[in-house]
């Protein structure tokens, strides 16, 4: 591995602003993990632009000693798209919540993904509107009682991975707020991917939606309920690494290695680079208790990014263009001289 250019520590990415999230909020751990990831990534500090919308999660940029933009509610994706398209040299991170990205920001979300702009979207999914004190969001579980659904919601929530794939996504990963070590790897892979990298972080809002992910995230049962996918490796999980996934027609099925003659070789090997989104959709949709929930990088496919394509097209046109400046343009085509 090449020598690193920068010797950052996570502290280099801490701003002087007081962190104002509730004690115990999952956002603290995500902040740590991203600061760690950035210290490990070899990118100059001044080349990061961290852009958010509005929400508890969206206060994130204030705590980072980088360029930061705390935007308006739902528009982080559009602002970030503009920043990255203007200057593709920047490493642009969009920090957003389930309300910010998927309710008011839904349109920018699907379009930035469709365009495959080279952004890292970190979506803090606490399944609630935190900042406005506890209304349901587009990811709140059906039937859940919140301040605006006193008798339970009657809305099907989005599945974030499914929506991203629906929007032609090239990168989807999932992680957990408090899983700092695993998260650091995921964030680094998100940055490495050229295109829109979407990371869903299961985040706990201790105040308004405590333990909404606890069934899945609890460390005690993680081995049974989580499967951490790695490209090129078999999809194995379980307390004793003895469970695996296999194909059963068009569906995925859990099997036990050692039972019914199943060996490790029968287990599906994760191919995050497969272009066809079908299997990635099936993986990202797996849900507890029938199946383990998938974590890590589920999809990562190569495609030209929008920002690079824009620059390439300009370069191509300019290579043969006759008009080099405004004087050329003004005097091009039909003109005439008045000489009284």
């Amino acid at each position, binding site marked *: 591995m090449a020598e690193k250019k920068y010797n950052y520590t996570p502290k280099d990415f801490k701003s002087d602003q007081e962190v104002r999230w509730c004690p115990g909020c999952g956002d603290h751990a995500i902040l740590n993990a991203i600061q760690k990831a950035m210290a490990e990534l070899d990118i100059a500090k001044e080349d990061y632009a961290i852009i958010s919308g509005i929400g508890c999660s969206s206060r994130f940029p204030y705590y980072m000693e980088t360029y930061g*933009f*705390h935007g308006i509610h739902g528009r982080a994706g559009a602002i970030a798209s*503009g920043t990255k398209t*203007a200057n593709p040299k920047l490493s642009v991170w969009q920090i957003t919540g389930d309300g910010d990205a998927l309710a008011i920001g839904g*349109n920018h979300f699907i379009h930035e993904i469709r365009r495959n702009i080279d952004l890292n979207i970190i979506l803090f999914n606490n399944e609630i509107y935190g900042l406005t004190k506890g209304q349901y969001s587009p990811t709140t579980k059906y039937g859940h009682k919140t301040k605006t659904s006193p008798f339970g919601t009657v809305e099907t929530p989005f599945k974030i991975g499914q929506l991203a794939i629906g929007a032609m996504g090239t990168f989807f990963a999932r992680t957990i707020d408090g899983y700092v070590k695993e998260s650091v790897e995921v964030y680094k892979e998100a940055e490495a991917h050229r295109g829109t990298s979407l990371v869903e972080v299961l985040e706990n809002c201790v105040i308004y939606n405590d333990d909404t992910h606890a069934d899945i995230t609890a460390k005690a049962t993680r081995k049974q309920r989580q499967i951490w996918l790695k490209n090129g490796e078999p999809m194995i999980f379980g307390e004793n690494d003895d469970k695996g996934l296999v194909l059963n027609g068009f569906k995925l099925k859990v099997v036990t290695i050692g039972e019914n003659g199943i060996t490790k070789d029968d287990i599906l090997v994760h191919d995050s680079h497969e272009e066809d989104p079908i299997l990635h959709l099936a993986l990202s949709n797996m849900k507890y208790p029938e199946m383990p929930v998938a974590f890590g990088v589920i999809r990562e496919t190569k495609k030209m990014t929008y920002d690079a394509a824009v620059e390439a097209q300009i370069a191509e046109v300019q290579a043969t263009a006759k008009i080099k400046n405004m004087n050329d343009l003004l005097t091009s085509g*039909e003109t005439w001289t008045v000489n009284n």
Partner: protein
Amino acid sequence: MDKKSRIEKEDVVIRFAGDSGDGMQLTGTLFSDTSALFGNDVATFPDYPAEIRAPKGTVGGVSGFQVHISHNKVHTPGDYADVLIAMNPAALKANEIWVKPGGTIIADIDTFIEKNLKKAGYKTLDPFTEDHLESFNVIKAPISSLTQETLKPTGLDNKTILRSKNMFALGIVFNIYSRPLDYAHNFFATKFAKKPQIVEANDMVIKAGFNYAENTHALPSYRVEPAKIENGLYRNINGNKATAWGLIAAAEKANLPLFCGSYPITPATEILQYLSDRKDLGVKTFQAEDEIAGICTAIGASFAGHLAVTTTSGPGLALKTEAAGLAVITELPLVIVNVQRGGPSTGLPTKTEQADLMQALYARNGESPMPVIAASTPGNCFDYAFEAARIAIEHMTPVILLTDGFLANGTSPMLIKNMDTLPVITPKIAKEGKEYLPYKRSDDGLMTREWGVPGTPGLEHRIGGLEKMAVTGNVSYVPSNHQLMTDERQAKVEQVVAKVPDLQIEGNPDGGDLLVVGWGSTYGHLLDTVTEMRDEDVNVSLAHFNYINPLPKNVADVFSKFKKIVVCEINSGQFVNYLKINHQNFEYNQYNKVQGLPFTVAELKEEFTNILEDK
């Protein structure tokens, strides 16, 4: 050409009208470009239906294009036409009221058959008698059949043949105004380089029309002498292209890359299109998913250090106002171009109006001041787009530039300035190596903060929509700081006045009986009216505004010189209300019109006369 005597005319207005499918816009454009190249001053006004192709043969489907040519300076496309070309009965029906008394009507008589007359809403088979057009010089030309006749030898199919009947009409008008045929020929030769047959057919038809006119003694013949305008190099340009180019010019003079985030909307779409064409000049256009993304991508690009622009029309501006407030509080440069159209709501999307002034000034939550300027001719859209960008960059603020459908689609010759003669624009970019305080204000009196561009080491900082502590830019809920920042944002916009030129009086600078006040695209009509009235010794002058917020410094001074003031607008009285706020101590008359149409000189004259006579 010398068979007939030529009438020397100062001024001619020609209106081409036909079905949407009849190619009237092209015909009109070819005529106006030929005239401009010939040295006339020119103004045009396309008037087309909202539907892409409205039902053939109906009044709703008529597409018109009016050209005003003169050897003097032209300020408007003209109120009424000297010559109307009506390609079918519907075109006649829709446009007969726009012909000057005694004017010429050239009708393609082949189309005046029962079916078409009925579709156009005529009740008899003789529309000329039915609508009392006897006082007009009506020329019934068999344009369709002569076109067919002309092209019969080519073996082209009938549909293709009939598609070129507009060129027959063009040929007729070329003859009347003694225009050369080469510009039109070159146009087709370039456009159909690979289809010589089509080029030849068009040539044949234009010539046939030209000859038909030559041979028909019924036709008057005019020659409009080249206009006496300022020496220099000229090009014909519409307001949208001028706007686009003014922005590119500003980026060049500011040495900044240009970024436009926009969503198509009539009549602003073309600005985005003209900018998309300019990859050669490195312009980045981002066709966003909606207007909000249009302005937000622009804000993101501004954050990244670009000259950022978003272009739209009324309903689109309504969608951008929340984000516009973000640009205000983050104090980032941004140009918002609003090409006004008829409202409210979708309203009359292809018609012109000036009814977004209040929206531009006040449509943001909270105390959210923003400079507003307005162009007044198609050509000076270039200058005011440039100026909007200059203000945005030098004063670190979003700026709204108002144009409208009338300017956007109309054309006028533009004197081409060499780029060296335009002022340099100096962005206030923070430098590496010095301590950077994002909300520290400049001490040049302009109260601007410095632009800290991502990618610059050592300037890392955070901005956003929450209230900022003065100097540091940290989030602040301190009450007195909110007052301070509110006042400073207001004061910063007021400082723009430093470079705003004084309001000019056209007419008598010492004052007089009546001061006509206008803003934006009504300039031409107001000027013509005032000029005509002054020629008749009426003591009336014009003060026309391009700078709305802040207003020029000398407004009270100018207003106080006149006995009466009348504020004229294509809305229900928005600027006059704004003047009452800012210059409460004057009495204002007002003249307003909300019909999706520009003023006419005639109505203005009548109105001003009434005011002077205290009617």
